[in-house]
């Protein structure tokens, strides 16, 4: 404030100088007294003043000085007013007239009181300047001629004569209206900064933060400005490079506006919009930098969402338009335009009614009313018109969009072409009808079928009974044939060996031997055929009992002892625990007899060993018998249990009828078990396995 003051004020403000002015004024007082009062009263004072000063400095010097002060007084850019002891204005300079817009008539000998608003005058009086007799400095208001108030700064001094009596006062008035206004402006600005919702910061040329407003603290989440003041401003940002760029722009161009990612004390980031500028003095020298910030994180997010929604809408395969209250379209997506046979440019600016089907205008108007009342309507099927005039069904919804002030802003409509759906619906309906017809036909067919089915079932039942009867007949026939064959075999078997003993001719003996062999083969064949039919027949019964496997196997080996010894076979019975099985004893023995005779038949070299073993499982015992015979191929393994199968057809083995294993299989299966064979291959021996249920206390 002081810097712009004219030199004279500095001069006057100087205590000493002011004192001199006082003297000067006091020296002029004589003249003033003459104008006002009887001269005789004044003369002493004046003389004394003059003689007093004259004694010290010399008159001519004083005379020159007075002239100098007078010039200063007149030309001073501050108002100086003198009053007499009755507070009437007696002297003023040119600037006073300018300041108060008054002339001599308005001022001369007028009470000084008139220059102030009454309340200000009372304040001045209450200061009691005259009685205190001291220089006083105060800010007050003065009234101009046109009653306009002006802010002033007044220095009041009491003028006294040499006897110390008050003879008047001098007021030095400065117009401070401008300063006042500036001060007020500054206060407003300060308040504005303080209360701004935008964050504001000042940074000095060294890059240190020197001021922040509460919004700034809030935005950066600092609890006190002490935490940020004096700190380098670069720390407020995520990217140092960007900050430096902005500082350069500020220095070179004086301002920068843009967006930046800010960093809080805890490291969290947010986006701010910045408006920064360089603060400069009158001579355009930079003083500091000022920036205001707006947190736009939310806005950014919204912008992104908006972009997303717009993209979705732009590319959507449903039609979307927005239009004002009069129906003028200002946005359309590609789908809407294409759907109606227009280009997007053609649609923009057209009225919504362009797309109405004339027959439905009324309904559309109803819908529009509904929108205005309730804000939207639920999806409705209406007909729209294409550019070529053809119509097509659409499903439409419309919504009223309001701005923040709840004022109607625009309307948005979504339109889906449902031609395909409609066609499909129609087709579906006709298909449903066809389906109904087909269904009833099907039901008829079903009924017929169920009748046929019933007949078929009966027929199958009949046939099954018939087949069972025939099968039984077959078994009976074979059985009967077998029994009938047994009787004629008996004399052959008994008489032929007898004949043999009586034979003396070697050639006849050889022939008889052939007959005997074949009689025995025939006997075996007959017996086993009967056996097989007996096991096959459904009413075949077994006398199942608990059998001790080890003793039973030993028994069987003993019964076959002669046969085994004749063929030089040894048996290795590896069963070493007590195992009880459920079986028909005779049938069980038959299995072993068959397997033993097979093993002997198919083991060419003598001195072999048969290995018998058993393994007890949870429910079943697996019994195995291994030989060292000719073994079997995979092909043979899969057929050996078939009736009349012979492992080697070409051998034309007269002494093997191929029923043995088939009988074994039947017996095992009738007992609920399984039988199978394994062989590593030709000449590598075979192992037969069969299972029987565990017996006794399981």
């Amino acid at each position, binding site marked *: 404030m002081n810097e712009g003051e004219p030199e004279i004020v500095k001069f006057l403000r100087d205590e000493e100088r002011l004192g001199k002015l006082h003297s000067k004024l006091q020296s002029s007082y004589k003249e003033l007294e003459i104008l006002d009062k009887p001269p005789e009263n004044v003369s002493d004072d004046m003389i004394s003043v003059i003689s007093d000063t004259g004694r010290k400095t010399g008159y001519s010097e004083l005379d020159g000085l007075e002239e100098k002060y007078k010039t200063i007084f007149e030309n001073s850019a501050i108002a100086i007013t003198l009053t007499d002891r009755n507070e009437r204005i007696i002297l003023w300079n040119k600037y006073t007239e300018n300041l108060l817009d008054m002339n001599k008539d308005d001022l001369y000998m007028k009470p000084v009181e008139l220059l102030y608003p009454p309340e200000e005058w009372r304040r001045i009086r209450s200061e009691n300047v005259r009685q205190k007799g001291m220089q006083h400095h105060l800010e007050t208001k003065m009234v101009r001629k046109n009653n306009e108030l002006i802010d002033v700064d007044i220095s009041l001094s009491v003028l006294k004569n040499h006897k110390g009596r008050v003879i008047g006062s001098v007021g030095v008035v400065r117009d401070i209206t401008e300063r006042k206004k500036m001060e007020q402006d500054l206060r407003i600005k300060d308040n504005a900064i303080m209360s701004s919702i935008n964050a504001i910061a000042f940074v000095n040329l060294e890059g240190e933060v020197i001021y922040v407003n509460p919004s700034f603290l809030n935005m950066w989440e600092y609890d006190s400005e002490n935490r940020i003041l004096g700190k380098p401003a670069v720390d407020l940002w995520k990217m140092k490079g960007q900050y430096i760029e902005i500082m350069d722009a500020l220095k070179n161009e004086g301002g920068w506006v843009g967006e930046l990612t800010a960093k809080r004390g805890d490291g969290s980031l947010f986006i701010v919009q910045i408006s920064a500028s360089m603060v400069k003095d009158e001579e355009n020298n930079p003083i500091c930098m000022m920036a205001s910030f707006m947190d736009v994180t939310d806005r950014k997010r919204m912008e992104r969402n908006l972009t997303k929604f717009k993209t979705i809408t732009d590319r959507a395969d449903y039609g979307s338009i927005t239009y004002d209250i009069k129906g003028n379209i200002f946005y359309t997506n590609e789908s809407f335009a294409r759907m109606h046979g227009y280009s997007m440019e053609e649609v923009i600016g057209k009225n919504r009614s362009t797309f109405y089907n004339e027959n439905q205008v009324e309904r559309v108007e109803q819908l529009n009313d509904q929108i205005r009342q309730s804000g939207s309507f639920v999806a409705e099927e209406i007909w729209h018109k294409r550019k070529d005039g053809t119509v097509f069904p659409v499903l439409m919804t419309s919504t009223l969009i309001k701005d923040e002030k709840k004022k109607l802003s625009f309307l948005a409509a979504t339109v889906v072409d449902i031609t395909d759906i409609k066609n499909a619906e129609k087709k579906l309906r006709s298909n449903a009808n066809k389906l109904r017809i087909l269904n009833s036909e099907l039901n008829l067919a079903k009924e017929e079928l169920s009748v046929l089915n019933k007949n078929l079932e009966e027929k199958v039942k009949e046939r099954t009974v018939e087949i069972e009867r025939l099968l039984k007949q077959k078994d009976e026939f074979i059985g009967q044939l077998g029994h009938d064959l*047994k009787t*004629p075999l008996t004399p*052959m078997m008994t008489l032929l060996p007898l004949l043999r003993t009586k034979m003396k001719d070697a050639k006849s003996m050889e022939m008889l031997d052939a007959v005997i062999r074949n009689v025995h083969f025939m006997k075996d064949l007959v017996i086993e055929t009967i*056996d097989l039919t007996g096991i096959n027949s459904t009413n075949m019964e077994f006398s199942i009992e608990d059998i001790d496997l080890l003793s039973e196997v030993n028994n069987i080996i003993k019964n076959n002892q002669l046969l085994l010894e004749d063929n030089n076979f040894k048996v290795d019975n590896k069963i070493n625990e007590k195992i009880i099985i459920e079986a028909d004893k005779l049938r069980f023995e038959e299995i072993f007899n068959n397997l033993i005779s097979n093993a002997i038949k198919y083991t060419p070299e003598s001195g072999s060993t048969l290995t018998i073993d058993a393994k007890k499982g949870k429910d079943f015992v697996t019994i195995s018998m291994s030989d060292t015979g000719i073994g079997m191929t995979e092909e043979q393994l899969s057929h050996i249990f078939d009736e009349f199968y012979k492992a080697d057809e070409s051998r034309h083995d007269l002494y093997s009828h191929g029923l043995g294993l088939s009988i074994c299989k039947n017996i095992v299966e009738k007992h609920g078990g399984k039988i199978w064979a394994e062989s590593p291959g030709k000449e590598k021996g075979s192992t037969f396995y069969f299972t029987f249920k565990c017996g006794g206390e399981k």
Partner: protein
Amino acid sequence: MWWREIVKKMFIIVVGEKMIKKIMIVDDNPDILLSIKNGLEDSAEYKVIGAESGEKCLEILEAEMPDLILLDIMMPEMSGWETYDRIKENEVWRKIPLVFLTARTDKIARDAGDFLGEDYIEKPFEIDNIMERIDKILGR
């Protein structure tokens, strides 16, 4: 063989007529009768009496007591079962050991044998089987 005949004659001289077992065979098939007669009598230890029916069997029994009867089951007119019953009715005859001859091997035949407590021999048989069984029953 000539020496067999000599052995047979010598056996009879040594053990006496009493030691020769009388075996009665009842079967409607004359060939069976023939074969068993020849087979058993080939050995000097047996004398065979043949009967071609149940009636004939009972008739012979009136006059002659065999050591053992071989009885065929399947015969026309009087069956083996019936003949068996008639034999068992007689206080004296019932003590004669009896073995059924049968071509049936099914369970019924077996049960019948078991039930009647008598032995049975399946047809067809070899003469050695018969001898073995006879000797076993007669405790030889």
